[in-house]
């Protein structure tokens, strides 16, 4: 366990290598055969969130390489026994680069990769790599930090509602990054979390948003993929922050901004690496700087000074002078987890399973 953790962290730091290589250079001229690229999605391409954004990335590959690539997608693949079959079928039908875009596809991806050493696999959000399985993810928590600053200034009730999907580190990290920034600008504000146990269920997400609004929340954050919460916020006249894609048109009055996933650059770079024969396994955890996430256009209702603060935070994060988890950080019990002057390291971020001060309720364990 220890060695794998150390190795993993090492890989994380080494990740910038791939991230730095994002460029839209022309594909290799000597490439005669078409590269077939497969995508395995956990949701429908029309979810307006997570899967939709991966599909935008897939289309970016099509656009960048034209006839030199052929992309294939399989949508709504369940994270059970089915995943392995779909991944294997893609590998067996000549796809030389396969993106599996959900955490639950990790073990099936590794299993299939063993039988197809000449096929490259890219697994989103996982932590196990092998010679032909690379992992990638984005530092969405950087976007959560900016959302926290804005929410802290916009709230009147000082109650923020947060819709969580599953209590995994990725989501907990988002809640914590948001809460830390929120309380930096508004020490009175607190965060109420509702877990819906799904990534995509517009009915549940909408109901959770309404329940939070009924409890006094006037800004709704979500770590789920449908725009239902933004719609509910629009209906009730409170603020909302979208997830994964720009959800402005689902609630133009309420949509403050959104943390937008941007896979285009990474996908194009990785496809190009396979074509050039330079593909290497590893882990990529890129942030705002590497362009793996972006903030959706800010609502015009946000005052100029708040907007300026958000823009400055974004610039500072990109410049490396601001870290979303800069100490001092205390947990819910008031125990200091990070001392002043230090940042929480990637290992702690990747396995985060505690709430910071200001989050109400207990983290389900």
């Amino acid at each position, binding site marked *: 366990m220890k060695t794998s953790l150390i190795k993993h962290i090492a890989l994380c730091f080494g990740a910038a290598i791939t991230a730095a290589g994002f460029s839209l250079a022309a594909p290799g001229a000597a490439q005669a055969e078409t590269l077939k690229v497969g995508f395995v999605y956990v949701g429908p391409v029309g979810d307006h969130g997570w899967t939709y954004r991966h599909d935008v990335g897939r289309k970016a590959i099509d656009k960048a390489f034209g006839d030199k690539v052929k992309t294939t997608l*399989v949508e709504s*693949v369940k*994270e059970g026994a*089915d995943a392995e079959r779909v991944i294997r*079928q893609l590998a067996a039908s000549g796809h030389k680069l396969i993106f599996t875009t959900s955490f*639950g596809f990790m073990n099936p991806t590794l299993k299939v990769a063993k039988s197809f050493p000449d096929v490259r696999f890219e697994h989103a959000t996982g932590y196990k790599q092998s010679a032909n399985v690379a992992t990638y993810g984005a530092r969405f928590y950087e976007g959560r930090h900016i959302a926290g600053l804005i929410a802290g200034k916009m709230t009147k009730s000082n109650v923020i509602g947060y819709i969580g999907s599953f209590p995994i*580190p990725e989501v907990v990290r988002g809640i914590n990054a948001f809460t830390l920034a929120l309380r930096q600008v508004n020490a009175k504000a607190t965060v109420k979390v509702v877990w819906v146990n799904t990534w995509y269920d517009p009915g549940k997400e909408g109901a959770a948003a309404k329940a939070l609004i009924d409890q006094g929340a006037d800004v709704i954050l979500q770590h789920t993929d449908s725009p239902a919460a933004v719609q509910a916020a629009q209906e009730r006249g409170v603020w909302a922050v979208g997830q994964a894609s720009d959800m402005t048109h689902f609630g133009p009055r309420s949509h403050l901004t959104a943390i937008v996933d941007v896979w285009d650059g990474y996908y194009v770079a990785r496809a190009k690496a396979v074509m050039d024969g330079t593909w290497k396994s590893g882990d990529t955890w890129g942030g705002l700087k590497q362009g793996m996430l972006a903030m959706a256009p800010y609502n015009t209702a946000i005052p100029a000074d708040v907007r300026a603060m958000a823009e400055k935070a974004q610039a500072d994060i990109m410049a490396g002078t601001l870290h979303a988890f800069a100490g001092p950080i205390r947990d819910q019990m008031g125990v200091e987890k990070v001392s002043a002057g230090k940042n929480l390291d990637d290992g702690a971020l990747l396995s985060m399973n505690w709430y910071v001060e200001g989050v109400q309720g207990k983290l*389900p364990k």
Partner: protein
Amino acid sequence: MMRVESGVRPRLEARIGTSRTMVYLTPVLAVILTMACGSILFAALGHHPPAVLSAFFIQPISSVYGLAELTVKATPLVLCAIGLSFGFRANVWNIGAEGQLTLGAIAGGGVALWAGDDAAAWVLPAMILAGLLGGAAWAAIPAFLKTRFNANEILTSLMLTYVAILLLSYLVHGPWKDPDGYSFPQSRMFADSALLPLLSTGTRLHLGAPITLFLALGAWWVMARMFIGFQIKVVGLTPAAAGLAGFSVKRLIWVTLLTGGALSGLAGLFEVAGPIGQLQPTISPGYGFTAIIVAFLGRLHPLGILVAGLFIALSYLGGETVQIQLGLPLAVSGVFQGMLLFFLLASDVLVRYRIRWDRAALPQEAG
């Protein structure tokens, strides 16, 4: 409220002496009609229908690997459907096979996690037993509520499904979480001794498949040859006669629900000890619910269910293949499966009933 309606009005009238041949032919007829209408749909989407049908029904099973995958996919469907068919025959409407499957996976998987890396030979049989018991225990709750309080088993078994899924979610997020898994919701991988042996290298065909086949034959024997099978059929067809004969309806509720639960639990255990190899929040893509369709498609007959399970499994595999090979969206497969069920139910009704067109002005109860 009374109103008068005039003109021609269709009415269903039961046919006297429904043809036995037709009852068995309707699924075939439904498949042919689905293929015909599906072809029109595919042509309208700009695809060559024979190519789509071939990708749907032939390519997925044109290799040994494909056949093995078909069997792997059909195994849980057939197991759950056979379990459900006992109840359905006796008018016991267990809708909660999905939850019983989940509990089987939890109980059997729990044994595997408890045994850890211990390579003892008893681990797998103990897991199978735990899977059977876990599923049966979950089905015992609706059985108790039905026999004691006359609570509707459709509701109780369905609601318990959500409880089971949340229980699994709690366990993999909490006490059974892999300590080396970065807090992700999943258990440790099971030790090799806790996995079902594979029957053919290079495939995922596991011991669960032949066990399922054996159980299907056994179920047929029970229904056709044993007294309990006779009782189940009598209670389902003519409850009054069953009462006169002194058959205990309560006992049959217990027997059918426990059997159904045990078989669904076994299906769940086969999934986690077979292709998945660990506990995780999603174990089944709804096998327990799809099994209801499989049970009726197979005419509640164990051997019919075997065929129906393979066919529905093929429709899922085909749905993946047309996405990969032809780029058809998943929704098209859904429409295709929906057509199949529509035609099956429609021809079923028309075989058992005839449409009468009444030409009369009748006073009519409306509402």
